[in-house]
């Protein structure tokens, strides 16, 4: 049960996907500590993980993900006071530059909580696609009925540009406090919606071997 000593730097050329990932995620520093993950995004991804794999990490047969990589991207907000009376408006940007080239985008969704209970009343939220030079502002509608309170809106068409590359996505998170007028609820900052990229990593490992050819008993 003794912990292994930290290995030295990894060699430059690594043939194995997992070791490549180790090199990319912790370049030159095996002592790197990830920021402690918490909150709604982690809860959502743990749920997704439990649906896709068993307790020892084996992917479940008939799993519904349909891909070998799902990347959660957090939003960066632009600061400022998002609350104005009952209204909450927060511009958000998802930066997608620097994604690995071997990961090919299959689809993208934004996940958010459309309905959050408050001590008095509720907070009702929606997502708007920010206006750009080419497209006007548009309300995103959930692609599926909310699951465990979460709603997913498909944003794939807004991410795939003409040349197949992706840059960034700008949204507005809009909420309104519903309930008794004049309620004394302290303004609650709703959890930022997050972006889920469903990707096919062509280097996550060799394809499963073809069916074993029939072999005669020797």
């Amino acid at each position, binding site marked *: *049960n*003794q*912990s*292994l000593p*930290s*290995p030295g730097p990894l060699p430059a050329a690594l043939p194995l*996907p*997992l070791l490549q*990932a*180790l090199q990319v*995620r*912790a370049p030159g520093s*095996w*002592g*790197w*500590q*990830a*920021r402690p*993950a918490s909150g709604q*995004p*982690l809860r959502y*991804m*743990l749920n*997704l*993980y439990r649906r*896709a*794999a068993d*307790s*020892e*990490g*084996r*992917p479940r047969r008939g799993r519904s*993900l349909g891909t*070998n*990589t*799902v*990347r*959660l*991207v*957090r939003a960066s907000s632009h600061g400022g006071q998002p609350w104005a009376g009952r209204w909450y408006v927060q511009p958000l940007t998802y930066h997608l530059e620097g994604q690995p080239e071997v990961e090919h985008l299959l689809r993208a969704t934004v996940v958010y909580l459309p309905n959050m209970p408050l001590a008095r009343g509720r907070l009702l939220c929606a997502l708007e696609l920010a206006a750009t030079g080419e497209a006007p502002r548009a309300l995103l509608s959930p692609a599926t009925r909310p699951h465990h309170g979460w709603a997913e809106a498909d944003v794939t068409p807004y991410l795939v540009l003409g040349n197949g590359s992706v840059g960034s996505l700008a949204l507005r998170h809009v909420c309104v406090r519903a309930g008794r007028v004049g309620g004394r609820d302290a303004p609650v900052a709703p959890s930022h919606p997050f972006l889920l990229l469903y990707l096919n*990593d062509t280097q*996550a*490992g*060799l*394809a*499963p*071997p073809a069916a*074993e050819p029939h*072999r005669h*008993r*020797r």
Partner: protein
Amino acid sequence: DTGTLAHDLPGYLREQGREKSDCSLRPFPVSFAQLGWDHWIIAPHRYNPRYCKGACPRLLRYDYHAPNHAVVQSLVHQLVDANVPRPSCVPYRYSPISVLMIERDGGILYKEYENMIAESCTCR
């Protein structure tokens, strides 16, 4: 010397089940902390890559999926020159593992890596 082989065969076939020391799959659960990867992998908590260990029998059974060359090497060891080793007991089939990782920018990544858990062994 086919006579030696033929003499061996009946006794071999009378064997009940496998010898305990025969090439087989063994469990070996580890934690990602033991591997030094717990700073970025948050699930699963347990990982059982398993391993293959044991002697390859003189006569390789069908369920070892051994290629013809391994059969020949086994015979060479037995009948020609013991300096040539018996075939080695190694993994034959693997399954993938799903992991959940934390990224430096606070993102969270679900990824499946192929060939991470040994599922069966062979003599090669």
